[in-house]
Each structure stands twice: as structure tokens, then as C-alpha cells.
């Protein structure tokens, strides 16, 4: 089971914030994918008398469903235009596929070693960009220190995808987002490029600030 589906299942385990929710607390998220319903068959009987939220308009039970893709589309979305975000991501995947197929055709030997599946490349890129810990600003004696602090799995995936998009948006006017995002994803999937460097810099900053870790409170 993918990481995001597990996280989606336990939506608010650690956060008790229900900002702007139209639903009362008892309401439970719907399970749209048929295979996920089949996986949790034994737990479904508990939901018979629990009120369930309405499914989001754009959700559907497709073979092509992927949690990372959905999250990425949500992060690309601006002003609620998720249809545009979806087309942008599909163009990104097309570009990734084209570049990788070109590499594969030009490769002298071991053509199967080159991955052309854009989805798995995106997942790999996100995994490679995930930070292990983050920094928080803590004020002691008038000085604000950058203190290293543990990070939750959810936040690490969010930061990875956010950094990918930040790097993709830092571009010239003539370069389109799908192009730049495709390059960034391919770089990150191979463990090089700006986003992986940003993660590395964060780790180095944490390590250099390790003495301040005692300033934390829980």
C-alpha cells in the first residue's frame, strides 16, 4: 500500500485542527478506490453506522489512480483550477516519457535499465528529496536560533513535493512549467539537481546547529 493512502486513511491522527470543515467530527472519509475497499474488508463493518463525508467531485475509481499524482496535482493547483493543474502534470509526464525513451533508444547496451515510467520516476524523485528533519526558529535571550527538530512522514513528503515545485517555478518566462518540472523530476530521481541539493543543505544546517537542539521543548 502506498504511503499516502495510509496517511489519507488516518487523516487527523496527530492534528486536532478541523479548520473550516463543514462536517461534524464523527464524519469519516470515504474510500473511493475499489481495491482499497477490498483490502479493508474487515474494518468496513465498523463503518456501517458511521456517517461518511461526500466524495470529492474529481475522485473516481480508475486504474490510473495514484496518491502521489493526486497530491502533486493539488499542489500545482492555483485558484482552484485543478483541471489546468491536471493537464500540466500530464504534459510533464509526457515530456519525462519522451526524454527517457530517447535515452533508452540511444543507449548502447542494457536498454531495460532505463526507467521510462513517469509515475515511478516521480515517486523516486519525491523519495530522494525527503528531508530527515527540519529547522524551527526558537527565540532565546533575544536571539532567534535555527533549531533542528524531528519531522513527521507527512510533512517530509509535503516538503519534498513543495521543493520540487518551487524549483520548477524558478524559471525564465519562455520556459513552460511542464518542461521545467520534468527536468527537475528527472534530476531528483537520479539523485542530483537543485532539489536534492536543497535537502542536503538543510541536513548540513541541522548538523551544524546540533548544539541548539537542547533549546527545544515538547
Amino acid at each position, binding site marked *: 500500500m502506498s504511503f499516502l493512502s495510509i496517511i489519507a486513511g488516518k487523516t487527523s*491522527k*496527530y492534528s*486536532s485542527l478541523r479548520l473550516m470543515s463543514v462536517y461534524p467530527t464523527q464524519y469519516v472519509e470515504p474510500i473511493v478506490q475499489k481495491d482499497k475497499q477490498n483490502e479493508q474488508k474487515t474494518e468496513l463493518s465498523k463503518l456501517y453506522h458511521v456517517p461518511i463525508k461526500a466524495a470529492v467531485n474529481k475522485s473516481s475509481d480508475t486504474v490510473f489512480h495514484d496518491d502521489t499524482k493526486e497530491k502533486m496535482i493539488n499542489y500545482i493547483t492555483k485558484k482552484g483550477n485543478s483541471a489546468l493543474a491536471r493537464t500540466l502534470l500530464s504534459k510533464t509526464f509526457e515530456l519525462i516519457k519522451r526524454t527517457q525513451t530517447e535515452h533508452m533508444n540511444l543507449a548502447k547496451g542494457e536498454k531495460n535499465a532505463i526507467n521510462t515510467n513517469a509515475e515511478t520516476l516521480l515517486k523516486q524523485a519525491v523519495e530522494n528529496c525527503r528531508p*530527515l*528533519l527540519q529547522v524551527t526558529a526558537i527565540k532565546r535571550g533575544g536571539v532567534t536560533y535555527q533549531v*533542528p527538530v*524531528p519531522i*513527521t*512522514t507527512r510533512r517530509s513528503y509535503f516538503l519534498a513535493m513543495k521543493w520540487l515545485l518551487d524549483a520548477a517555478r524558478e524559471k525564465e518566462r519562455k520556459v513552460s512549467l511542464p518542461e521545467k518540472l520534468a527536468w527537475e523530476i528527472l534530476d531528483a530521481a537520479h539523485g542530483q539537481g537543485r532539489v536534492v541539493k536543497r535537502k*542536503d543543505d538543510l*541536513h*548540513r544546517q*541541522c*548538523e551544524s546547529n*546540533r548544539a541548539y*537542539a*537542547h533549546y*527545544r*521543548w*515538547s
Partner: protein
Amino acid sequence: MRIPTALYAARGRSPQSEKDVPFQEILPLRLKNTVSGKADSGSDVACLQEMGVLFACLKDNEFVEKYCHKEISQFQNCFKCYMDRKFEAKKTVNQGIVQPGSNLNYKQLNKYMRRYPNPL
């Protein structure tokens, strides 16, 4: 040579008479029925040791993560356990649901004391 107190009295170092300074009970001279929650329960910082070990490993391996799998998983497990404990505590201890024993939270103590208040 010890100077007797009487000589001090002659110079004005006499003890205070209570009539000059009447006793005023500004704060009530009784125990309260509540315990203050200000005592720092948040000073337990989680996973510092694991973090130190992780940093040492990363420094040795030039921040290449694949050589530090063990330390990374230890650190993440530690944090996960800590968050689980916190979640459980939030449900029981922090609500004030009393489980008899020692090391009670201030909320639990307050609930207990409300049942057996001090006589006025």
C-alpha cells in the same frame, strides 16, 4: 564582649509592638483546592540522543543517506513512539481521566481534589 540587649533598647533598637503593625490577611491563609499546571512538564525533549547518533553517522558518510539506514530508522521509530505516547496521553491523562497511582497530571489532581475539597 557581649553588649546586653537592654543597651540597644536604650538607643531605639526595640522590637516592634504589634499595635503599630496590625496583621492584615491579604491572601487567604488556607490551602487551595487546585494545583497549578505551570510546573514544566514540557521539558522532556524527545529523541535527542538518536538525533546525535544520526548526525555523527551523516558526518562520517558525507551526508549520503543510504549508508545510514539503521540510524535513520532508529530516529524515526523514536519519534513515532514519542508521538504515539503523546496521542495516548492527550486522550486520557490530559483530559483529567484519573488512573489511580503515582505521578498524576495536574488535571487529574484537580479532578480528585474537587471531589474532596478542603473545609472552608
